[in-house]
């Protein structure tokens, strides 16, 4: 079973749309499980006609709780907290959005009035679409520990993949370079990097490549909207060459893509003859060359 993660650094370069199309194409010849680890704003299920078939609440976040029967109001916890998560009103109040669940306050409370407990911080949704399953994570509003939720999403995805004997787990990754991205990359076999020709996307690509590089996995690049800025496009090629990274393909700007998404379909299904679809077909083949999948 091969695990492929699609990341970009910069948000909005087309990860979800591409994942939907690639998933759709790869599923023609292989058993594929799709996963959406962009838990703050999961969009993959919107890019394909899906129906929800199961969900599971996840408590992957620890928070401190004060037992006000025991609290003496000394405010030691307010001083102890390094994350400014406890505020002094009439009594100390813990702000869950800022609480890291470290337990330092619990350790220093003279009345032992504070306990750290897991709280629900999100859910895992399982969707079905034509011939494919999709495991999605969704962070609760105001929830923390999105990285830990990503861990749980991947764990569930691997279970589902094992049950269905999937050969490929294709993962739509989160934007950025922080904790959720690192969690998405852990244990993956290959990172597919999506970018677009702009100085900002290239800047973010460099940063995410640095993070992905720690994992020492294969990496390949796809340039989306490749024809919007030639100077930046050349810089991307130069960057890829310098980092000995293959460019698996380029997709020109194609209005068919947003049109397909507006209809809840991957472009390769809605407009199979569109120039973007043809390029994505090539990219799917190049991807299978880069990540050999045993059938």
């Amino acid at each position, binding site marked *: 079973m091969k695990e492929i993660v699609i990341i970009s650094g910069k948000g909005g370069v087309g990860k979800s749309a591409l994942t939907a199309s690639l998933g759709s194409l790869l599923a023609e010849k292989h058993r594929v499980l799709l996963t959406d680890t962009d838990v703050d704003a999961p969009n993959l299920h919107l890019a394909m006609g899906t129906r929800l078939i199961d969900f599971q609440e996840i408590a992957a976040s620890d928070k401190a709780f004060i037992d006000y029967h025991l609290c003496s109001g000394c405010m030691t916890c307010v001083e102890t907290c390094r994350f400014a998560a406890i505020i002094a009103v009439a009594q100390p109040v813990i702000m869950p959005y800022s609480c890291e669940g470290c337990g330092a306050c619990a350790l220093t409370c003279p009345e032992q009035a504070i306990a750290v407990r897991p709280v629900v911080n999100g859910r895992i949704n399982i969707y079905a679409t034509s011939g494919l399953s999709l495991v999605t994570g969704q962070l609760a509003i105001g929830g923390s520990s999105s*990285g*830990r939720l990503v861990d749980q999403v991947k764990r569930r995805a691997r279970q589902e993949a094992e049950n269905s004997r999937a050969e490929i787990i294709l993962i739509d990754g989160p934007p950025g370079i922080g904790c959720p991205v*690192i969690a998405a990359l*852990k244990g993956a076999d290959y990172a597919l990097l999506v970018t677009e020709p702009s100085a900002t996307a290239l800047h973010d690509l460099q940063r995410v490549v640095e993070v992905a590089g*720690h994992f*020492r996995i294969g990496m390949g690049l796809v340039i989306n909207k490749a024809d919007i800025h030639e100077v930046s496009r050349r810089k991307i090629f130069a960057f890829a060459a310098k980092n000995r990274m293959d460019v698996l393909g380029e997709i020109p700007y194609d209005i068919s893509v947003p049109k397909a998404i507006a209809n809840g379909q991957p472009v390769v299904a809605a407009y199979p003859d569109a120039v973007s679809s043809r390029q994505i077909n090539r990219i799917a083949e190049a991807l299978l060359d880069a990540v050999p999948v045993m059938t």
Partner: protein
Amino acid sequence: MKLCISSSGKDIGARVDTAFGRAPYFLIIDTETMEAEVVENAAAASGHGAGIGAAQIVSDKGAEAVLSGFVGPNAFSALKASDIRIFEGISANDTVQEAVTGFKKGDYREVTAPSTGPGRGGGRGRGGGRGRRGF
């Protein structure tokens, strides 16, 4: 030798678990006498640092070697700090019993460098040596 094997179950007939940090149990086996002790891996559910937590449990039990499928870079550093030898290569299909047999025959490779992974804690150093532009 006191050998620790990451396991999915509590006895020697159970299947192994290839991921060291998140295995639900460890079986500590004396390879001479075949006496086995089972330890629950309380670190398995941790968000962060499951590998190091697992290494602490295993080190505290006096293991001299660990046999698993994959030992991440943080767990690697921890086990090495306790001079515990690390062997990798068990397959998810093996039972603990089969793994011990294989170990005694020399089937598994000893690992002297961490497996792929971020290795952030040990690899980076602790003193904030990353004084670059960071941009």
